[in-house]
């Protein structure tokens, strides 16, 4: 499953340019990398969100794959139905092609409103890959907090005021929740780590049964970062251990990357306008709390991956 750049460059990726995702948005980069990594024909589903809206603006579509958009909460259920019908058709001999099913959802459509649908699909064991592009808020409706929004981040429904310093409470650890479903493959990555991302997509597509990828995605508008800093800020998310690159294969944890020098979380927070207020003296405790949470999670993952490799 080695990834060869020269070969990749020759490949036609069934996702065209000219769509209306913002400059610097991580989501279309993720889609391109996912579809570039796939060797099998893909049928895709997409939950309501920026990716759905801005890649399918009337009368165009950026998708070269079959695509279904149903609603906000049910991409996993919708793809479940397709996958089940495909299985039945295959069993009957009506289809012989090896088709893979991929569902895309943002953090709103995955962590929040779509969690029940996702959980059901994973438990039933559909042969599908669910990809969450997590940019930490409802960006499509104008930057409202989600359960993926980090502690202290400013959004339009967790506004920073005199008393309340942004979002109260930590983000939900969805990757752990999905690992707890004991499905064959769960992983975390970012589009700044393209080789890691594409390797994980290949693994996810290769397993029989459900796989889940949680992919950190930049949003220049919501994160308040320059358009051209997405990749470097996504790298910082990994180098500060905010977003560890790891995978859980058949229940066994594997850390895919350990930074030589673990950078302080503030390196990742500082370039993002949504965290600006945290650098005021009165909010120092929030920075410390965020760092402590990152440390706790990182140590836990290290322990799990060490234990599993021994």
């Amino acid at each position, binding site marked *: 499953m080695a990834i060869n750049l020269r070969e990749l460059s020759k490949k036609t990726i069934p996702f065209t340019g000219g769509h209306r995702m913002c400059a610097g948005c991580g989501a279309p980069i993720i889609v391109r990398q996912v579809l570039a990594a796939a060797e099998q024909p893909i049928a895709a589903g997409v939950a309501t969100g920026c990716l759905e809206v801005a890649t399918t603006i009337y009368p165009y579509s950026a998708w070269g794959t079959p695509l279904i958009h149903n*609603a906000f909460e049910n991409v996993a259920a919708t793809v479940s139905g397709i996958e089940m019908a495909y299985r039945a058709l295959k069993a009957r001999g009506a289809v012989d092609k090896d088709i893979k099913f991929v569902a895309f959802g943002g953090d709103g459509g995955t962590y*929040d409103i779509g*969690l029940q649908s996702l959980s059901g699909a994973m438990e039933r064991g559909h042969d599908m890959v669910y990809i969450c592009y997590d940019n930490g808020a409802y960006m499509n*409706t*104008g930057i409202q*907090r989600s359960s993926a929004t980090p502690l202290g981040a400013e959004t*339009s*429904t*967790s506004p920073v005021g005199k008393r309340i310093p942004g979002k109260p409470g930590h983000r939900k650890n969805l990757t752990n929740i999905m690992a707890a479903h004991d499905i064959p493959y769960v992983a975390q990555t970012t589009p700044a780590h393209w080789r890691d991302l594409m390797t994980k997509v290949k693994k996810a597509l290769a397993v029989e049964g459900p796989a889940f990828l949680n992919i950190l995605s930049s949003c220049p508008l919501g994160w308040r970062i320059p358009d051209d800093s997405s990749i470097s800020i996504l790298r910082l998310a990994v180098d500060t251990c905010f977003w560890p690159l790891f995978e859980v294969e058949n229940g066994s944890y594997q850390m895919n990357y350990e930074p030589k020098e673990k950078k302080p979380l503030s390196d990742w927070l500082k370039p993002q306008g949504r965290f600006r207020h945290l650098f005021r003296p009165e909010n120092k405790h929030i920075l410390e709390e965020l760092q402590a949470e990152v440390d706790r999670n990182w140590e836990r993952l290290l322990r799990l991956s060490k234990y599993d490799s021994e």
Partner: protein
Amino acid sequence: MNLNKTGTHLFQGNEAVVEAAILSGCRFFAGYPITPSTEIAELMAVELPKVGGRFIQMEDEIGSMGAVIGASLTGTKAMTATSGPGFSLKQENIGYASFTETPVVVVNVQRVGPSTGMPTAPSQGDVMQARWGTHGDHPVVAIAPGSVAEAYTATIRAFSISEFLRVPVILLLDEVIGHMREGVSVEDVQAVEHLERKRPKGSKSDFRPYRDDGSGVPPMANFGDGYRFHVTGLFHDERGYPDLSPEWARTLMKRLMGKLDAHRDVHEWVEETETDDAEILIVSYGSPAQAATSALRQARAEGLRVGQFRVVTVWPFPEDALAKYKGQVRAVLVPEMNLGQLRLEVERVMGDAAPVLGLHRADGELFKPAEILEKIREVD
């Protein structure tokens, strides 16, 4: 925000809802982002903490609806806001609020459906859903303001009706009313009367949460105030305990469905213009009423006897008020941004007395006064 100001100010419809809700004493909002209602949640997130209220964003619209029901039971005035797809998700809980007689205000800023439809375009496609969206026979009130100022007064009345009659009130804005900006006189809109929830008197041990006091609306204790309080979506007796007997079901449904009839003065809201000598009647509601008013003026200038019967409280439908025009008018026009929903009610009331002609569009476009005027001329 303009709560403490005087004079006329430019408001957006969604802003007017937030201001009026806070003025009405709303101190709890649970919401979920959805176009074109999101401004209501965003403003509530900013404004509620300033007045000691609470805003929470939920994981979806089902959660939002559950949370406002819970908050209301504690004695707090509570509201949520959404649009088409979210309104669909709220339906089960709207039925629960209606059956458990929990006051809640649900704002639905209508966009074009079905399904995802046209998220940024106006519609009145949810009129029947507001009445019958949840399963089973149930009482519900729906109000469709026709201007930004009326969005303000309608919100105040929505809280009054909901609290006083213990019934969910659907505030049916459309995208135009929600996003349009108009001048609103603070003095005028703040003059609207507020009605409150009836509280129990007498000893706590005698309290029965669903005992009719003769008005059809049982006084309501706060959850957690020491009154015995059992809430369930099953058929329930005066204590709130499940009672599925046919005899009791008949008694309970009679009271529930009857309480709105008995208090028509509280919720009925119709605005009539130039109807005294009208031969052609326009029955309108929501933002198309503005185009209808303009068409009416032009028609009057041409000497045509046209009047407007503007329905503000859409449900319960003001059938007696409309029935007055049977025998007076030659024709009735119903302009609606749907393919004919309230028209069915108008037809039911008018019967054979006059033909009812619908002007319908569900394409995301507004009515132009000229379209309505042309229809008036055609009828005349």
